[in-house]
C-alpha cells in the first residue's frame, strides 16, 4: 500500500517538475532572499541577469531586516533555505557554525571575482577558518559626522586625526557650546563607536582562538579609558539614543557637534537637515591613538552567500558574479546609496566627487572585522552593559572589565568544549 502511494507521489512530483520545466524554458528558478531596501531594488538588477542567462529565472523574496535573522534560522532548521541570500557580516560566523553556507573557495578559484579587488578588512570578515563563505555586496563602517561650522569656529577647520588632538578639539567645541551643549553624541547603548576605538588601539577583544575575553588587556584598556574620559569630562552626554527625540533636530540645533555613525546617515542628513546647514556638515575618518594611520573602524555591510542546501549552486554563483561586477555595483549604489564593496567602483565620479563619501572610502582601507564566533553579538551586548555601568553607574573600570572577561569566558565555555572535542577528534 505504502509503495503504491510512494510511486503515485513520485509520479506526481515528476509530472509537476516537468510542468515547471516547460514553463520556465530551460528550467532553473533561483530563490534569492534580500532584506529591506536592498530587496526592493535588486528586483531591477536581476532582470538584466535573466536576460544574460536565458533559462535562469530569479525569484527575489524581500524580507524585513527585523525578521531576517529568525527567518533564515527557521529556514535552516526546516531545510527550506534559499539558493542565494544577502547576509549581514555579523551573522556569518553563526551560519558557518551551523554549516549552512557553501564554501566558495573552489568557485572563486575559477572566477572573475578576485579578493584583491575588495577592501581587505571587508573581505576578511567573510573568511572563516580560512574558507571564504560570502562575497561582499556592499560595505558599511562608522566614521565621524560633524558640524564643520562649529568646529571651524572653535579653531578646527579640519578634524584632527590623533586621539589627544581630537580630544582638545572636542574640548574647544564644548567650551563654546556652554553647559547646554556637547561636543559629541556618544550613546552608551551603541557599542560600535567603542569597538572602533578598541580596534584602533589594537584590541581584537577575544584571545586564544576566540575562546576567552581580552577586555582587561592593555590594548582595550587604553581605548576604554579614552572612551570613559569623554563622558567624565563632559564632552559627551551619557544619553541613550532613544532619549533624544530627534537626532537630526538636535544636530541642527547644535546640542551636539559630532556623532559617530554609518553611511545610511549620508542620505538622512542630506534630506533631514535644514537647507541652511547643508554646507555646514562634513565627515571624517576615525582618529587613531597614534595618528590618522592608526584610526581604524569596523568592517560591516552585507555579503552574498550561497546555501549548502541549494540544488542550483552553479547558477547561484553566476548571480553572485553578476552582482559583483563593478558596473552593477555602481548601479546598486545609485539605487540604494549603499557603498560598493568592489574597489573599482570607487573610481567613479559619483563617489570620488563627494568629500563626505571620500572619507568613507578612506576609512574602508582601515577596517577590522569583528571576532568570528557565533557568540559575538551577545558578547558585544554584554560589553555595552558593562561599559554603561562605568560611564553611567560610576563603577571603576578595573573591576568591571575584569568581571566582563569572566562573564565572556563563561559564555564561551561551550565553544572551548567544542574546539577541544574537534582537536581530540583530529588527533585520533
Amino acid at each position, binding site marked *: 500500500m505504502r509503495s503504491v502511494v510512494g510511486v503515485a507521489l513520485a509520479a506526481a512530483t515528476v509530472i509537476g517538475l516537468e510542468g515547471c520545466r516547460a514553463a520556465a524554458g530551460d528550467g532553473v528558478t533561483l530563490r534569492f532572499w534580500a532584506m529591506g531596501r536592498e530587496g526592493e531594488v535588486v528586483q531591477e538588477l536581476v532582470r538584466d541577469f535573466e536576460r544574460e542567462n536565458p533559462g535562469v529565472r530569479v525569484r527575489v523574496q524581500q524580507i524585513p531586516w527585523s525578521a531576517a535573522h529568525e527567518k533564515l534560522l527557521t529556514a535552516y532548521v526546516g531545510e527550506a533555505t534559499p539558493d542565494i541570500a544577502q547576509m549581514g557580516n555579523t551573522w556569518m560566523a553563526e551560519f558557518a557554525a551551523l554549516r549552512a553556507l557553501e564554501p566558495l573557495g573552489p568557485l572563486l578559484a575559477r572566477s572573475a571575482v578576485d579578493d584583491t579587488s575588495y577592501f581587505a578588512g571587508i573581505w576578511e570578515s567573510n573568511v572563516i577558518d580560512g574558507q571564504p563563505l560570502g562575497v561582499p555586496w556592499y560595505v558599511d563602517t562608522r566614521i565621524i559626522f560633524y558640524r564643520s561650522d562649529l568646529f571651524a569656529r572653535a579653531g578646527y577647520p579640519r578634524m584632527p586625526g590623533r586621539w589627544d588632538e581630537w580630544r582638545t578639539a572636542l574640548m574647544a567645541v564644548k567650551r563654546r557650546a556652554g553647559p547646554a551643549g556637547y561636543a559629541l553624541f556618544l550613546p552608551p*547603548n551603541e557599542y560600535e563607536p567603542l569597538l572602533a576605538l578598541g580596534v584602533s588601539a589594537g584590541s581584537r577583544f577575544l584571545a586564544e582562538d576566540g575562546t576567552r575575553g581580552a577586555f582587561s588587556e592593555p590594548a582595550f584598556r587604553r581605548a576604554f579609558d579614552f572612551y570613559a574620559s569623554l563622558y567624565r569630562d563632559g564632552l559627551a552626554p551619557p*544619553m541613550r539614543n532613544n532619549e533624544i527625540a530627534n537626532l537630526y533636530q538636535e544636530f541642527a540645533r547644535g546640542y551636539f557637534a559630532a556623532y559617530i555613525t554609518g553611511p545610511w546617515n549620508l542620505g538622512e542628513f542630506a534630506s533631514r537637515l535644514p537647507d541652511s546647514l547643508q554646507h555646514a556638515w562634513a565627515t571624517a575618518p576615525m582618529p587613531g591613538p597614534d595618528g590618522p594611520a592608526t584610526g581604524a573602524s569596523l568592517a560591516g555591510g552585507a555579503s552574498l552567500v550561497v546555501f549548502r542546501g541549494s540544488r542550483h549552486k552553479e547558477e547561484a554563483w553566476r548571480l553572485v558574479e553578476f552582482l559583483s561586477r563593478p558596473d552593477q555595483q555602481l548601479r546598486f549604489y545609485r539605487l540604494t546609496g549603499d557603498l560598493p564593496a568592489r574597489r573599482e567602483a570607487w573610481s567613479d565620479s559619483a563617489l570620488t566627487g563627494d568629500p563626505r563619501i571620500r572619507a568613507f572610502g578612506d576609512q574602508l582601507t582601515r577596517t577590522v572585522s569583528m571576532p568570528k564566533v557565533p557568540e559575538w553579538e551577545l558578547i558585544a551586548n554584554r560589553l555595552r552593559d558593562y561599559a554603561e555601568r562605568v560611564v553611567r553607574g560610576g563603577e571603576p573600570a578595573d573591576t568591571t572589565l575584569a568581571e566582563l572577561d569572566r562573564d565572556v569566558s563563561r559564555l564561551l565555555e561551550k565553544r572551548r568544549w567544542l574546539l577541544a572535542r574537534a582537536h581530540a577528534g583530529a588527533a585520533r
Partner: protein
Amino acid sequence: MIGVGVRGQAVAGWMFIAPAVSLILLFFFVPVTAGLVLSLTDFVIYAIASPATARFVGLANFAAVLADPVFWTALRNTLFFVLVGGPLTVAVSLAAALLVNSRLARAQGFFRSLYFAPVVTTLVAMAVVWRYLYHPHYGLINHVLGLVGLGPVDWLGDPRWSMPAIVLLSVWKKFGYNMLILLAGLRTIPDELYEAASLDGAGWWAKFRHVTLPNLAPTFLFVAVMTMIEQFQLFAEPYVMTQGGPLKSTTSIVLLMYEEGFRWWRMGYAAAIAFVLFAIMLVATMIQLRLQKEQTT
C-alpha cells in the same frame, strides 16, 4: 451486567473528554515536558546544527540563573511592577469606576469610552507618544513639574525613574479594562442599601466603606487576581519603551527570558528561567487563593 454498564459509561465518559484531554496533552503537557528536558541541557545555537552537541547538565542552568545578577535585577523589577503597579492599577480603576458611576457625573457613556480608549490602543503607537511626554527637555510631564518648581526628571534615562515611568504608562493603559468590570460590579449593588444607609445618617465615606466595598468584594477579588497574573508577565511595555535599560532597570523576567531564548538562542538557560517564573507565580497564586478562602469563610 452492572459492571459492564459502569465500564461502558466510563468509556463513554473518557470519549467525551478525549478531545479536550488530547488537546491539553498535545499543546500543554508535551511542550512543558520538552521545556523541562530543555532546561536540563546546554542547548545553544550550535545544537541546532547537531543536536548531539547539547549536553545534559543537570540543574546547572538553574544554578546559573540563581547566580546571575541580571536575573535578580529582573526579579526585583518584576516584583516592583507587581507590588506597586498592581495595587495602583486597581486603585485608579476603582476611583475611575466610582467617578463614572457617580450620580453627579454627566455624559457617563462618553467618559466610559474615553477611559477605555487606552486599552484598545496599540502599545507601539502609544509608546511613541509617551516617549515625547517623558522627554527630559520638551516633555509635557517635565514641563508641568517645572511649573510647580520641581526639577526636570530624566524619566526613561535615569535608572531610578525608568521603572516608575513604565508603571505610570501601564496604569494608564490598563485601568480602563478593570474600570469596566468594577463598574458592572457597582451597578449590581441595590440602591435600597444606599438609601437605608442615608436614613441611618451615613456619610459618603461610611457608605463607601460599609456598603460599596463589601458588595464589591467578589468583583474586586477577580480584578486583583487577574491584574496580578498580568503584572507578572510584564514584557511589552519595557520592550517597546526602553528595551530593558537603562542599566537593566526595566528588564522584567519575561523580557530576560525572551532575549536569552530568541535573541541569543540559549534555549536551555531560557527554559530554566521559565520554570523559575512558573514556580514564583505558583506560590503567588497559592497565597492569593489562601487569602480568598479566609475572606469567604
